[in-house]
């Protein structure tokens, strides 16, 4: 997806995160936190020219919804655009160090996804704080990168 659309989503996701309680609303808070960071990583990868910023939308690794001439969205194979999650799919090309750090921050968040959202682990203030710190670091690195000139 194009960078402007990613940034627009990040802005709205941040506004929603501010209305959610990190423990009372943990599931949705976590989900929007993860989505915010994933959009940030996609922006950084597009900005660095590692992945393509085409307006095609992933359904599974390697498969995207692609607009046809009549505007209809059809599934098809496409070179790497947006990743669904950090590591899904793995980016095989060389990645600049600041983006690699963003990805490591996202792995901290993703580590809590299955146990806390899909599984039986009750979220704790420490888990929420760890996710919050990781997202802040990810967004800080993105701001530095795009601040260099998009």
């Amino acid at each position, binding site marked *: 997806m194009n960078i402007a659309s990613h940034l627009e989503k990040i802005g709205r996701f941040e506004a929603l995160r501010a209305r959610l309680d990190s423990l*009372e609303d*943990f599931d*949705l808070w976590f989900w929007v936190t993860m*989505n915010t960071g994933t959009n940030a990583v996609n922006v950084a990868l597009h900005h660095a020219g590692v992945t393509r910023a085409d307006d095609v939308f*992933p*359904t599974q690794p390697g498969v995207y919804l692609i607009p046809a001439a009549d505007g209809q969205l059809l599934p098809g194979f496409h070179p790497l655009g947006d990743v669904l999650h950090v590591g899904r799919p793995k980016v095989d090309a060389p990645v600049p160090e600041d983006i690699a750090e963003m990805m490591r921050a996202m792995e901290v968040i993703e580590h809590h996804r299955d146990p806390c959202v899909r599984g039986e682990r009750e979220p704790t203030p420490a888990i929420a704080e760890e996710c919050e710190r990781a997202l802040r670091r990810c967004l800080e690195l993105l701001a530095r990168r795009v601040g260099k000139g998009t």
Partner: protein
Amino acid sequence: MQALDHRQRAERVERSLAKCGPHDHEMKIEAAMLAGTHWVNFVLHRMGVTKAEQDVMHTYMLTVNELRKYSVADVWLMLAMDEIENLRPAHVRGNVPGGAAAADRALELLGKIRAKATQQFR
């Protein structure tokens, strides 16, 4: 996860949904997916079709055989979840116009999934 835990998780996500505003179509769709998946697991566990350690995560990640089996249990539930999942690429990951209408549809489906689950297993 036990059936009762799925129900409580679904209800927690639904309470959080109330904090979404008119511009939050992505997270309304995601909340419908998260809560709907818990309701599907609640029903499948209560029917005795799946055990607590066999939770469905996404309909598109099921094997063909699993999808067939769970559709025998309740084909409407599986189709409703699939419809919610199919809204995600264009409207959660993508920037396709019509996000608000897609979110309304996801929430409508979630309401029907919840009603079916709670009527069947009070």
